């Protein structure tokens, strides 16, 4: 009676998601067997690696399935890889930290995997329903992860703040989707985009309100000003590895959605470029200005992550293939160096009684020269110094802006990146320039952490010096846009 064949089920398209889900199940199943507790993290990594492999197999094989609910193109593959890599690095960062802090639970990895899966769902869909669900699958575990240190008041607070505001924003997103649906009769972005002209002429206000609210829903996730104020509190309160993950993966997912929305969904909505322009300027400026006087490294990095979202918004404002490629590249780069920076912060915070205040960094360069050097590398990359990949990313973004004729925006961007130099250098200053008489507490490296640091540092520097391949990939990611 009911014909299922029209669902066009093709597991190939969602194989990475399935891999993650399977891994999550396995973890949930074995997690509480004491003898197998040690393999939880490896299982997560195996799952992620499998997913990575499956995702890379999807490269250059654009396809669509599940009645158009799943869109698998290079763009989505690129983002999937970002999410997977971010998760893998997060596992490396988190492992020791959670143990030391006494909050190690196997569910953490399951939630991480599910959240990652949600992001992948977001990235590989051009349907608002799936985007919404993906967003929720991503967010619900994130709320939990933020509050994961149940005994920590800060973590509690971070969780509840994130949850309330996240759900609040979801409601707006849903309202936006409803209006878009009302205007165009569909939730498929491609069809919305195709019918946009018609929709605008028939129901202009539905379209506009829908577009604006949908955009806001995702702008919340990427922490665009003025939808950003949850970021510092949540980032500061959440366990640091979680913060690391927050600062990178959900942001990238939000951008994946926004990029799709902007490039294929909300085309021809007249106000959208200006909105992006204003959001970009506000986000960069407010993020940077607020970061200037922060004395807590995590909180500073939180504001800095707002500012970085602003740079990517510059690409969105500029529009065009190059801009999207630039955004992809920037997010890859940002994933590397921001996770790296948080890895160092985590490492330092693993020592007891530390709260990641700037002052705790004093003497780092003397007692831990390599760690200090790596931290400095990440800071310089965040600030956009060549030859790090941070510079390359900014360069590409701003050149996309200039190419699009947004020279003013590029100038505002570079002036902001000038401001950011100040506070990133404060970290470098704290670790190199400030002298202290107190001995520096021991830092204990875990193998995972070392690996994370090596990968992120090598990536930050290596991709900055030899970026050709990365550039090609990011350009290819835009080529076969479905």
């Amino acid at each position, binding site marked *: 009676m009911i014909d299922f064949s029209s669902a066009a089920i093709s597991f190939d398209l969602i194989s990475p998601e399935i891999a993650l889900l399977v891994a999550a199940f396995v973890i949930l199943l074995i997690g509480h067997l004491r003898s197998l507790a040690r393999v939880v993290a490896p299982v997560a990594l195996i799952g992620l690696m499998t997913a990575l492999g499956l995702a890379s197999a999807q490269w250059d094989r654009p396809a669509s399935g599940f009645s158009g609910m799943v869109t698998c193109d290079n763009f989505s593959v690129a983002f999937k890889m970002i999410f997977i890599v971010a998760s893998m690095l997060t596992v490396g960062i988190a492992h020791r930290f959670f143990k030391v802090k006494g909050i190690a639970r196997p569910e953490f990895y399951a939630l991480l995997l599910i959240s990652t899966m949600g992001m992948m769902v977001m990235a590989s869909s051009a349907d608002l329903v799936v985007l919404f669900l993906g967003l929720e699958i991503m967010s619900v575990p994130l709320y939990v992860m933020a509050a994961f240190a149940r005994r920590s008041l800060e973590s509690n607070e971070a969780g509840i703040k994130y949850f309330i505001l996240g759900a609040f924003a979801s409601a707006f997103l849903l309202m936006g989707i409803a209006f878009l649906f009302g205007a165009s009769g569909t939730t498929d972005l491609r069809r919305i985009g195709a019918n946009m002209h018609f929709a605008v002429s028939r129901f202009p206000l539905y379209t506009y309100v829908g577009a604006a609210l949908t955009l806001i829903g995702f702008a919340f996730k990427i922490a665009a000003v003025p939808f950003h104020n949850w970021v510092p509190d949540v980032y500061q309160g959440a366990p640091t590895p979680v913060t690391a993950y927050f600062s990178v993966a959900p942001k990238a997912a939000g951008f994946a959605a926004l990029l799709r929305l902007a490039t294929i969904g909300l085309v021809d909505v007249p106000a959208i470029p200006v909105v992006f322009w204003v959001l970009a300027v506000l986000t960069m400026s407010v993020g940077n200005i607020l970061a200037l006087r922060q004395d807590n490294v995590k909180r500073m990095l939180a504001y800095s992550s707002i500012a970085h979202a602003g740079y990517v918004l510059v690409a969105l404002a500029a529009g065009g293939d190059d801009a999207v490629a630039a955004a992809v590249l920037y997010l890859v780069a940002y994933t590397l160096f921001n996770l790296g920076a948080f890895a160092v912060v985590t490492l330092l915070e693993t020592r007891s009684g530390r709260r990641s205040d700037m002052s705790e960094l004093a003497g780092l*360069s*003397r007692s831990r*020269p390599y760690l200090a050097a790596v931290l400095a590398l990440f800071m*310089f990359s965040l600030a956009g*110094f*060549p*030859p790090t990949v941070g*510079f390359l990313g900014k*360069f*590409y973004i*701003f*050149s996309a802006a*200039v*190419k699009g004729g947004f*020279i003013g925006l*590029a*100038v505002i961007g*570079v*002036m902001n*990146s*000038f401001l950011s*130099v*100040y506070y990133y*250098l404060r970290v*470098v*200053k704290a670790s*190199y*320039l*400030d002298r202290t008489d107190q001995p520096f507490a021991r830092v204990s490296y875990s193998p995972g952490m070392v690996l994370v640091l090596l990968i992120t540092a090598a990536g930050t520097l290596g991709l900055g010096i030899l*970026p*050709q391949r990365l*550039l*090609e990939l990011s*350009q290819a990611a835009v080529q076969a846009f479905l």
Partner: protein
Amino acid sequence: MERDILTLVIFFPMIGAGLLLLVPNARHDSLKSLSLIMAFITMLLSFWLYAMFDPLAQGMQFEVNLPWVQSLGIQYHLGVDGISLLLILLTTVLTVLCILSSWNSITTGVKGYFMSMLILESGMIGVFCALDLFLFYVFWELMLVPMYFIIGVWGGPRRVYAAIKFVLFTMCGSLLMLVAIIYLLFAYHSYSGVYSFDMLKIMDMPIPYRAQLWLFGAFALAFAIKVPIFPLHTWLPDAHVEAPTAGSVILAGVLLKMGAYGFIRICLPMFPQATLAYLPYISILALIAIIYGALVAMVQKDVKSLVAFSSVSHMGFVMLGMFALNVEGMEGSVLQMINHGISTGALFLVVGMIYERRHTRLISEFGGVAKVMPTYAAFFMIVTLSSIGLPFTNGFVGEFLVLLGTFKANRVYAVIGASGVILAACYMLWMYQRVFFGRVTADENKNLRDIDWRERIILIPLVALVFWIGIYPKPFLERIEPSVRQVLSHVNRQAADASEKSDHLSQAPDSDGCENSLRSCDVKGALR
């Protein structure tokens, strides 16, 4: 080998920095020796470069042009002409001396310090070799980081403030330069259909007048901060005073040159019309810098900040000569860059020597030092004289050519500029008098030991250069001249093209008829 020599010179110090990583932290002597050896070999390589350089050839030599990031049109394009050749030599020589001078004064963080020095050297040489704007920018920023550390970690009491100020000032300008570079990329693309950052190609691209004004402004801001031109100079005294001796030497000796080099390599040939339009303003700012720097230097209480302000004044000469836009002025300007590197570098070195002994640089703390340290006083005197441009020292040749060239371009400028020569004598000699002459009043000064052999070895090469350039500058000048002519021909040809096409020039704000005719005469003269 000959093909790769530039790459070798650039990256050899960086390899050295890598090697330093392998040496244990505690083995200070090995660290020092290794970095000295690496810097020394780099210096020898640069000498070899000098030896192979063909002074008669036009254009770039030892060019390397490899693709780097193809999708953005970025190339690994290196090459030197006479101007950059000399600046490279200056860099390598000063670095060796700096490493020597840091031998005893750096006691903490030795490894980091010498690594910073070597990376800094790489960055500086890279700036002088790069012929690709992107590459140029990368090196330009690259040298910021080690300098930040050198000032910030091993500097004086206000080192943090100075280091941040230094970085922020430089970044402020260079980021706008980045936008301009990006703009040029696309402008060149729409002109030729190819993405390229190649300076040599972009030089041949006609750019609309209005765009030139903006682009020149963006580049000039970055360079002007570095030079520094008058109102943008306030980072310099702080950075100089707080930096350790070697930092000051490199800062004054090479980093300031990068600004002037940027003008001559990028601003002038790429934006000739804008050059003419900005010319009066930059010249006037340069003049203000000359007088202002000298006057402010006069009343400084700290020897280093005195020398720092004197740098402002001297770099004013460099800019003045460059914007004379004739062979004499520009040649003088380039030579003056070298001279300033030698003289001011030497000044900082000698100041550092006494600082090591007394741990103060306040002029009032000294007096009668000539009695206690006669050899030191003699070296200091020579360096002082070179700084005030006494004939047969290097300073004279440069200043003379600068003023001579300026005089041709604009007599009033030259007259005002020449008065800076008087003021230079005032502040330098007054300082010298207060430090060296008179009776030894402070007890701490009674038992100062005279400079030892290491310190002499540091100073002797510089003093030798002071006299070499002062007495026989021909080898330098003959290498500078073709390059300078090349730059001028770019400026003049394009400006001439433009004046045929449009009447911008005749409406240009400096359109004093007499001056214009003077300049156009010079155009022909230079081409002949």
